[in-house]
């Protein structure tokens, strides 16, 4: 240890020469502009009425719905992801698809839990698949896109229920078939427009196929929905 002190003395010898002279003024103000604005924002969103907060979130969700219905190459859906929209759509779809009759064992319709699990589990698996294939999209962004693109299928479900109110004949079935096919291809096209950019070029088809299968299965569940007598 003594040796270390011996050798360290010449190293630190020059430090004693350095001194801050008193006649160099050190002044100024250190301000972090972003920090003060954030602090102001936090305070302001706490103070605003609840209606404003809810309306702001609803407006964001509605804006994303519009983006899904008219898919353009905008990154708004990807940048500000949220999972409220997918949750609303999934619950709506599952509620409309579930069997309400007492003899649900005989009916064979998908239960609420089955639809819920298929949609969320399917989205997670597709996201994992695209990430494993080397995609650059983040996990929740992909969940957000896949969930929002169920919107055309939910619209088709509502249309199918309305058509079924008029009786389940062959014309009604043809109308339902056309509507479900159109909306399922719309969903696939919309989600591909958002997801395909994040994949390397020679693997795009490998990522698009599971998305196609996912919406095809949901479309089949909607098409085979029959009202209980």
């Amino acid at each position, binding site marked *: 240890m003594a040796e270390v002190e011996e050798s360290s003395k010449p190293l630190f010898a020059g430090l004693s020469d350095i001194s801050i002279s008193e006649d160099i003024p050190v002044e100024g103000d250190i301000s972090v502009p972003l920090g003060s604005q954030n602090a102001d924002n936090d305070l302001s969103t706490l103070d605003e009425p609840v209606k404003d907060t809810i309306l702001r979130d609803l407006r964001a969700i509605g804006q994303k719905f519009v983006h899904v219905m008219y898919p353009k190459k905008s990154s708004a859906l990807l940048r500000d992801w949220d999972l409220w929209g997918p949750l609303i759509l999934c619950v709506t779809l599952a509620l409309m698809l579930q069997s309400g009759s007492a003899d649900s064992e005989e009916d064979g319709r998908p*239960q609420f839990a*089955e639809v819920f699990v298929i949609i969320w589990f399917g989205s997670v698996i597709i996201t994992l698949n695209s990430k494993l294939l*080397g995609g650059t999209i983040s996990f929740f962004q992909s969940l957000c896109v896949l969930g929002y693109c169920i919107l055309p299928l939910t619209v088709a479900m509502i249309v199918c229920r309305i058509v079924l109110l008029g009786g389940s004949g062959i014309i009604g079935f043809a109308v339902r078939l056309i509507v479900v096919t159109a909306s399922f291809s719309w969903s696939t096209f919309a989600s591909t427009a958002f997801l395909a950019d994040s994949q390397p070029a020679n693997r795009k088809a490998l990522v698009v196929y599971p998305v196609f299968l996912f919406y095809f299965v949901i479309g089949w*569940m909607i098409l*085979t929905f029959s009202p209980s*007598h």
Partner: protein
Amino acid sequence: MTNVSPDDLKFQEFDEAADLLSSNPGASTLSISSPAAAASSEEVKVDLSDDEDNQQESSELLGGEKQTGGFWTFEYYQSFFNVDTLQVLDRIKGSVMPLPGRNFIKHHIRSNPDLYGPFWICVTLVFSVAISGNLSTFLSKMGNTDYHYRPEFHRVSIAAVTVFLYAWLVPLGVWGFLMWRQSVERQISGYTFLETVCVYGYSLFIYIPTSILWTIPFNWLQWLLIVIAMVISGSVLVLTFWPAVRDDTKLTAFATMAVIVSLHALLAVGFKLYFFQVAMYTGPSHSVQQITPASNHTSLTSGKPQ
């Protein structure tokens, strides 16, 4: 000058260039054949050692080189999805058209087994069998006024359990058996577990168009399709596993082949009997009775299909 022996001036052969490259894949090399030097060194090994003698060493070596990172890292699993669209399509083509002499693992997989193909083929098979079965039941009972259409969604879960158990447990059994025989008799060469799963997964592909064609409600057509699918898919499996067991005793080799083929046949026949029943009966009461006995016959672990 210090003493220089004439041996130092002789030209020294660096015949361990491939080993040097594999130990240091990041080293810059001049490669004439392909830009991916590290990958091509592995492929060069496979092509040179296509004869059966070196098969054991090469498969062991290449099986060991696959581990990139521990199994808790994401990159470990990413290495199993290192395939392009064209590669997947090529492997599917190879599973549908088995040519004698073309070992599926050696020719198509080439030490790059992937989990994308087996997994998504299994998922597609589950849904195609369930949807086609539902469709065929609907078509066969369409004229029946008492019949009320049911989506029969619970069949998807049954199909999923069956397909995924088959696609994972049977390769595990086959791989374990081959490893055991390999430890008993040295000249047997085995495959890695992933390659076995890969072969089984791709061999299930032929059942997807078969299940879609099963909706055509002719009994003889359905059985003919089963025979065709079993021949094609079974021959893929036989061509793959025969080189691995043919050095064994005759009895063990034939028994192994028979077990593999019969399990595959059991899967196909089980699907046909459970999901696709051509209507031979009228009335809803008969339909309920028909479904339950068939479900007893489709348990793969016990009983034989009639």
